[in-house]
């Protein structure tokens, strides 16, 4: 899975990304000082509970957040900060360089346009292909994702199931051969077997075109199955980042450990205490009110700290690095 060489520079570098929303009840801090790197060809999973800010990170990279969002930090792609690009410049990046697959595929497709045309239009608008040629290419892409036949080409989203619409969205995200694909909860609304099948197809095509995948999900097992590395988010902050297998076998952050214990096969234990407010998050380490290993120092903000990996990755490669935001390290 991991085709990355140690000297590869990251294709996308998120630096100190903070996002807050002005609402009637106050400033909602949806993401705080998020840092991570995405390498060529790899799959990085951003996991965490619903409402921890994962999707906000994805949308802010694409500049798709609503107007009441305040974004700070940088998202470096091909030497440019995506967050400072104009809407016009961004439209050349979206779909062509970085594509996103939304959750809720049946609502994200235009209800009164044929699915094939919704894919083909990207080729027409961004590459200037004629209608017939772009429809043919769209048909080929749908075929690769298991939607064969002329009748499928002529269908509308309401005639498709959620899983089929998800495939249409994936086809649309891949048609321009982008270098990065962001999948925002792609398994939401699909049953387990179907989600696994769709994701397997997505991973296969992603590897064929050599793109990187940023997978946003709350499904830990899905993340483990298809990602190389994993970043665990809690209350808008990344708590731990490292190789997926390592994080599963040896969680370092108390939150990661608590999250893994929630899995049915690992005891089905809920995390004690309520989820923190995103408007007034706890001071210091945001997890400290619910943490079993709390000490006095946790009331101050911990820094991201490198810890020893077990070294399943090639020596010297970035993925060897395991980082944890906890005072115990």
């Amino acid at each position: 899975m991991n085709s990355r060489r140690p000297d590869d520079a990251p294709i996308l570098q998120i630096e100190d990304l903070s996002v807050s929303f002005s609402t009637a009840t106050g400033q909602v801090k949806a993401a705080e000082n998020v840092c991570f790197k995405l390498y060529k060809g790899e799959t990085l999973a951003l996991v965490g509970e619903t409402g921890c800010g994962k999707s906000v990170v994805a949308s802010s990279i694409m500049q798709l957040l609503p107007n009441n969002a305040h974004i700070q930090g940088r998202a470096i792609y091909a030497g440019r900060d995506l967050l400072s690009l104009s809407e016009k410049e961004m439209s050349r990046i979206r779909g062509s360089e970085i594509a996103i697959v939304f959750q809720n595929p049946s609502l994200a497709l235009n209800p009164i346009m044929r699915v094939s045309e919704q894919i083909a239009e990207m080729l027409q608008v961004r590459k200037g292909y004629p209608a017939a040629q772009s429809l043919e290419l769209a048909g080929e892409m749908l075929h690769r994702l298991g939607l064969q036949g002329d009748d499928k080409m002529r269908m509308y989203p309401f005639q498709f199931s959620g899983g089929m619409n998800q495939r249409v969205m994936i086809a649309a995200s891949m048609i321009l051969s982008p270098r990065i694909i962001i999948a925002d909860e792609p398994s939401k609304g699909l049953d387990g077997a179907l989600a696994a099948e769709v994701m397997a197809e997505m991973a296969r095509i992603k590897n064929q075109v050599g793109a990187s995948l940023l997978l946003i999900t709350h499904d830990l097992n899905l993340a483990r199955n298809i990602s190389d590395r994993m970043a665990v988010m809690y209350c808008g902050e990344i708590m731990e980042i490292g190789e997926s297998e390592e994080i599963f076998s040896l969680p370092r952050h108390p939150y990661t450990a608590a999250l893994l214990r929630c899995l049915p096969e690992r005891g089905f234990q809920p995390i004690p205490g309520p989820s923190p407010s995103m408007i007034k998050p706890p001071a210091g380490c945001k997890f400290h009110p619910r943490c079993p290993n709390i000490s006095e120092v946790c009331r101050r903000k911990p820094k991201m700290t490198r810890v020893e990996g077990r070294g399943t990755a090639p020596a010297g490669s970035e993925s060897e690095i395991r980082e944890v935001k906890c005072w115990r390290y």
Partner: protein
Amino acid sequence: MSLTAKRASRYIIALVIIFTLNFVIPRAMPGDPLTNLLGEDVILTDSSVIELRSEMGLDRPLFEQYLDYWHGILHLDLGYSFHRHSPVAEIIFARMKWTLLLAVPSLLTGGILGTILGALAGWRSANSCQKASTAFFLAIYCTPPYFLCLLALYLFSFKLDIFPLKGFYDTGSAADIALHLFLPVLVMTLFSLSRNYMIMRGSVLQEKSSLYAAFARAKGLYDAEILFRHVFKNALLPIITLLAMDFGFILSGALFVEIVFSMNGMGNLIYDALLSRDYPVLQGSFLIITLMVVSANLLADILYSRLDPRVRWH
């Protein structure tokens, strides 16, 4: 295609009911049905009353009269106006072409410009230029069309003397008719434009926050591409329904415009018929207008299913 037939049959049933009511009302109204059918101000001698009664079949059984009534309608016979001394159908068709000459260009330009300008206003709702245009069209929207007519007449015809004060034509040449029609068509266009503008603006405002518009943006479409490739068609759907329901209202607006500009179209025909209680002309006019409103609804229905595949399939 069978779906279209199914829809059409629904409208035909509606028409049959309306036409039947038109038959029943003058006969069920208090007083002599002859007076109700001829109009109140027609003065008749006793002998001509008896003669007319048998000529119009009022002495025959109701069912026979009803069949006769339909026979007449299918042969475009809408009765005879004793006020104007000519068949009602002839009078109406002579007047209707002038009203259509006023209403059709206004409805078309108002429809096309209203939806496009309204869509842009909804899409760029934060833009101060669009805010100003919204305020302008809101003011027009709130002003009754006959008042706009009076304003236009006062300013352009009376004060500035650019356009003629009244009528459809003086000499009858195309340029002359166009000059006469300019102000009324302008007012009618503004009237229908402002209605479409407000509805389309609201519709686009609602549609632009939908997920499919966000996905279109995520696919790399830029600004107006999203509006015209995705949002516009979806936002148009409620407009089509409203346009059909509005058709009668806009037509009545045209009648008022005609009266203010003293144009001899349907508006003045109905107005005069009302004042002189010329019931045959009134009934004939209402039937024709009903027919037009129902056809507009049928057209909207067909158009809607052309645009929205969900209606076609369910």
